[in-house]
């Protein structure tokens, strides 16, 4: 008997993982022929007799009747004369580890992507898909729109002709009045304007920080001891002017975050009260409206204001307006130069 062969718990169905040994039909020392029943096994679906694969002698009974055994694990060992086709790869199932199947995305389809994160509460309102997209883009609350489409659905027509919420309209009106008054007051201030174009690349926080730094270097041109940079931001209710206090003293990263959160708040008409006072200079960025320049607004009690516009394909136009009571021509030019130099270095 030259071969030792373990007779294992066989896999009898596609889903079977273990089987129960019912009983042995042989004992140690028995001689068996190929095809003789060795033992019976059971799963919840099937009972089966397991036969000897070849002539031989029973050497060891490995398991006990009643035991639950994993498929592929030995139940008894027999010695055989002929070589049995048996493959024991460490007793472990060679289930190959496959990468998880990747869900295939068809090329033309993409998940719907809202253009900006949507803080607008537009559930419980029926609107055509494009109206939702547009409302989110424009920051419009769909609950304020009157629906004329079938089944009370807001159509694009409804959105485009929207009557704004009266409370919103009131605030918008108040804002406009504020700006109008500002222009009136501006007229009374003796002022001059300069402008320069620059190909420097800068974002809002960098501009705010650079301008504050330039002003900080000229305390002789200041009315106040602090620096407060007001930035005009479009909000739900019209223009808002949040003030960033001493922005040159913040780390640029911090300032960036502050600008971002303030802009978001402004869009929703929620700038904190503390940020609405203390401006010593104002920045108007009209590139957002694709403009090159605009009428400068110089508020009383502020020595300077900046207007940023387009000047060509990759150039910006920076225009500085100064209150001649506190700053003369030459100093004004120096300030603008210093700012442009600083922005170019960014």
């Amino acid at each position: 008997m030259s071969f030792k062969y373990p007779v294992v718990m066989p896999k009898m169905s596609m889903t079977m993982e273990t089987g129960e040994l019912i009983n042995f039909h042989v004992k140690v020392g028995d001689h068996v022929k190929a095809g003789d029943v060795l033992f019976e096994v059971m799963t919840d679906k099937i009972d089966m007799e397991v036969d000897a694969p070849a002539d031989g002698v029973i050497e060891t009974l490995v398991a006990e009747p009643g035991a639950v055994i994993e498929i592929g694990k030995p139940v008894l060992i027999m010695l055989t004369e002929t070589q049995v086709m048996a493959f024991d790869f460490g007793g472990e199932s060679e289930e190959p580890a496959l990468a998880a199947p990747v869900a295939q995305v068809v090329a033309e389809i993409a998940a719907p992507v809202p253009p900006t994160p949507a803080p607008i509460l537009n559930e419980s309102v029926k609107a055509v898909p494009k109206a939702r997209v547009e409302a989110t883009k424009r920051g419009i609350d769909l609950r304020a729109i009157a629906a004329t489409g079938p089944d009370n659905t807001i159509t694009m027509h409804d959105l485009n002709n929207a009557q704004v919420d009266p409370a919103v309209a009131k605030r918008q009106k108040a804002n406009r009045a504020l700006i109008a008054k500002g222009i009136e007051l501006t007229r009374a201030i003796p002022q001059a304007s300069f402008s320069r174009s620059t190909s420097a690349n800068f974002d809002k926080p960098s501009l705010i920080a650079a301008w504050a730094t330039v002003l900080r270097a000229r305390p002789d041109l200041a009315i106040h001891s602090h620096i407060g940079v007001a930035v005009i931001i479009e909000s739900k209710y019209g223009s808002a002017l949040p003030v960033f206090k001493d922005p040159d003293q913040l780390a640029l990263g911090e300032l960036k975050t502050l600008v971002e959160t303030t802009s978001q708040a402004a869009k929703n008409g929620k700038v904190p009260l503390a940020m609405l006072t203390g401006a010593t200079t104002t920045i108007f960025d009209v590139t957002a409206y694709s403009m090159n320049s605009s009428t400068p607004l110089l508020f009383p009690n502020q020595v300077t204001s900046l207007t940023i516009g387009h000047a060509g394909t990759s150039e910006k136009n920076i225009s500085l307006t100064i209150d001649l009571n506190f700053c003369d021509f030459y100093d004004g030019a120096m300030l603008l130069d210093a700012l442009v130099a600083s922005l170019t270095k960014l």
Partner: protein
Amino acid sequence: MLTMAEAIREAMSIAFDERPEVFLLGEDVGIYGGAFGVSGDMYHRYGSERVLDTPIAELGIVGAAVGAALSGMRPIVEIQFSDFTAQAMDQIANQAAKIHFMLGGALHVPMVLRTPQGSGTGAAAQHSQNLEPWFASVPGLKVVVPSNPADAKGLLLSSIDDPNPVIFLEHKLLYKIPGRDPVPEGAIRIPLGVSKVVREGKDLTIVATGIMVNKAWEVCEKLAADGISITLIDPRTISPLDMQPVFESVDKTGRLLVVQEGPAHAGFINEVIAQMAGSVSFGSLIAPIKRLAGMNIPIPYAPQLEKAAVPQIEDIEAAAREIVSLWR
């Protein structure tokens, strides 16, 4: 101008001349000239070696086509009514469609199965079905639905060229009529998997298949007179489906109407809607997507019942007008 049957016959003849391994088999395709006259005089021109009359044995003849395709021939098998593809479904769906994949690419099945489908001839329920969803839902089959003679010719030549099994569904009512456009001469080929923008407009996008393309065309003409301009798209190939022109058009028009003759439930046209609903172009819609399709009933016999079972020109017109007026 050539009719659809003549255009298909011309395509088969061109294929026969180009490649000696192309042959036609089916019931009554030989001496009789085809139940709908499509093969016509091909038996006399090419002989019984290449135009084989078969007994009534759809499973056997489609299976023989599969075996012949595996062995170097390019069979065109004609099944007399699309309804009878049911008899042959094992060979179509379990064999032809799957062989290339199951066998790891070792073999492929360059076979075209042509069959007439559709209602309107009073042939009743078992001879009038639109079965493109059966085939479109089986991976491994290409499915083509021509709407006019010129397209039929060009698409059939490409189908014969294709190394994969192609199900070519011809509408019975279109066989005997010419199309709007003349059929170009010679071996023209239209690639599979490319949708056609039949006309362009800005107010509404209509996607239609088969005979509905022609009905939709009539509607487009009528509404143009009232200042409503419509983009009409004919996918031509059901599977694989080219949705790109549909997305581009809906981005412009914002309104989508889909039209098919087959029953609405689980029909092919729902694939167009599903893909639109999951795409970025969904955000361009200013109206809900409207679907016109056959009633979920077997096709009835009496002519007024048969008509009522599927969309007619009036239905398409009403739907188009309604979408444009209700959703501004």
